[in-house]
């Protein structure tokens, strides 16, 4: 199979730019990156279709030159339609994010942050000590409250 080098280079360039943009934090840039990348992928489908040829429309007359492969074109069309819908959805989501937060950055997970903070403050063991009945590790100058065991005894 012979390959059109120009198409390959353009597809590679588009995918590279797309990848760079996807690494950004702002959702709208990520979206542009995805669209650029999607175009690169569509081009690579044309490469996969092999050599170019006449339009693959069949009628009574026998084709004079070899026809282009219609299958990849059908796939690209499908992919473009899907990409369009996704773009619309992500745009709507970016807008909603802007409405809610004033920006459209991809955010960190709050629950993750809670666990991290609990670990930093060394209190995770408190919740579990109700089960395991073990003291939190280490001497903690902050701890004015009695240990869980004492509290239970008080009651």
């Amino acid at each position, binding site marked *: 199979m012979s390959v059109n080098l120009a198409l390959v280079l353009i597809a590679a360039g588009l995918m590279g730019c797309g990848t760079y943009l996807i690494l950004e934090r702002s959702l709208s840039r990520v979206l542009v990156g995805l669209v650029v990348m999607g175009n690169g992928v569509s081009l690579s489908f044309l490469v*996969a279709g092999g050599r170019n040829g006449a339009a693959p429309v069949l009628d009574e007359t026998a084709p004079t030159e070899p026809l282009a492969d219609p299958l990849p074109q059908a796939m690209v069309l499908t992919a473009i339609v899907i990409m369009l819908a996704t773009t619309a959805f992500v745009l709507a989501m970016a807008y909603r994010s802007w409405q809610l937060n004033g920006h459209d950055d991809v*955010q960190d997970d*709050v*629950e993750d942050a809670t666990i991290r903070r609990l670990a930093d403050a060394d209190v995770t063991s408190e*919740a579990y000590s109700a089960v395991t009945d073990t003291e939190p590790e*280490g001497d903690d100058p902050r701890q004015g409250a009695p240990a869980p065991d004492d509290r239970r005894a008080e009651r």
Partner: protein
Amino acid sequence: MTSALVPLPVALPLLGAGLSLVLGQHPRIQRWVSITVLLAIVGVAGVLLVQADRSGPQVQWVGGWPETLGIVLVADRLAALMLLISALVTLAVLLYSIGQGMTEDDEGAPLSVYHPTFLVLVAGVANAFLAGDLFNLFVSFEMLLFASYVLLTLGGTAARVRAGTIYVLVNLLSSMLFLISIAVVYAATGTLTLAHLADRIADLPDHVSLMLQLLLLTTFCIKAAVFPLSFWLPDSYPTAPAPVTAVFAGLLTKVGVYAILRMQTLLFPESPLTGLLLWAALLTLLVGILGAIAQSDIKRMLSFTLVSHIGYLVLGIALANRAGVSGTIFYIVHHITVQTALFLVVGLVERRAGSTSLLRIGGLARLAPLLGVLFFIPAMNLAGIPPFSGFIGKVGLLQGAQQQGTWLAWVLVAGGVVTSLLTLYAVAKTWAVAFWRTPEQAHEAWQEAGSVVAEAAEQEQGGGRGRRRARGAGAARSHHPDSPGGLVSSTDLEEVRALRDEDTPVRDLHQLIEAGEDTRTMPISMVGPTAGLVALSVALTVVAGPLFAYTDRAADDLLDRTAYVQAVLPEGAP
């Protein structure tokens, strides 16, 4: 064997989706449309299962194109079983969500959208199981993903938009990868029909077929949340409404696993990449379950166990022997049922106790004994306690590993057992904290944790990290490489604010009881479907013998390949 029934599990929900979109103003009729459609799919899937078992794979070329050009739908033993179990599970989830009334009064969500979207999701899942060519598989992934985007961000609250962003972006990226893989496969072989590819990939040079395999594997591993590609899942699943999380957890990752299984057995039987997949399985098992232990929220804990148990499925696929593949199929069926049931139960917990955070709830065993039973059975099943199907599936998989006999396979046996034990630890901890201790104990623990978090947040906000204890400060700095010189970055501040905002309005179960506001009832229409699903998971134990015989036959089909290829292309590949 041609069967006109094969396209129905895809066509019916799509038609139903259109119909219920039109009927958006009549929620009552909408509900009946959805229920009827799902009942019909259960019926069709049952018939397909029997037909596929008796007379080989059922095939339908759609659209009247010449063979290998058109779209083919295939229901072999594996696909029919997946179809049946997914139909049963989605039916239960639909009934549950109707009971919850999320279609009517959920935070001002666009009301009429839920039912059509849910049906499109069902159609996408069914299409993925039936797809006989790669591009149709891509389209079905897009169908189910698009529906899942909408369901995940239902209502557009801040938390859901945040979670949805990560989910949508990761899946868009994997869709791109899938498209690239399809282009490469087509360039290399000139076909996308799986049965045809099975024939042609064998003729490719080794390095080309290895590249194709790795590309497809990466794509499907993102969908299935296999270890290095799994971090998106626990961040995005837990914020969705309970029934949505339940159906995602039950089905969507399993569709990815199904795609891996189909591809590994049908397209690349010669080079299964055993070593690589075994390592991925081991790391998925261990990292997932260690993550689950660290969580303080039941939904997040379950999301991590979901990731972890995908490792078992990958283990069986990597082994690529009869016992391994059969065990995988059995375990998929078990895991779909149990994981969905658990998430539905957690939805009930949230309704009853007002939260799913282990820091805030307690004493549910006394307050709601039925809830305790409904949680306990699938939790023990998940951990693999002997009478249940989880134990039987794990034994099947470990037997496969033992037959393989390499040192790595034995390491996997050890890893599998350790994971099972740690799962037991994670669910037992949840049980003890959420169901066993009293709400007062929970209240005190939460007060203390809350004050410490607020204190830590205050110190950070002042930029005074140096005042914190050396150990804590060191850990904090290593977590924030992007905040040099002790300056607090903007994302940090936002996190702090989110935490502080969260602290004030949320009351724990004890406070709710004190205020007399803990009386949210659990309607029978929610408990019923949950109990049904739990009963189904127990029933899997009862029918384990015949089911394992069936999965053995399905595994034989998968490893042999001729039945599938001949059913799709009876006159041989052109």
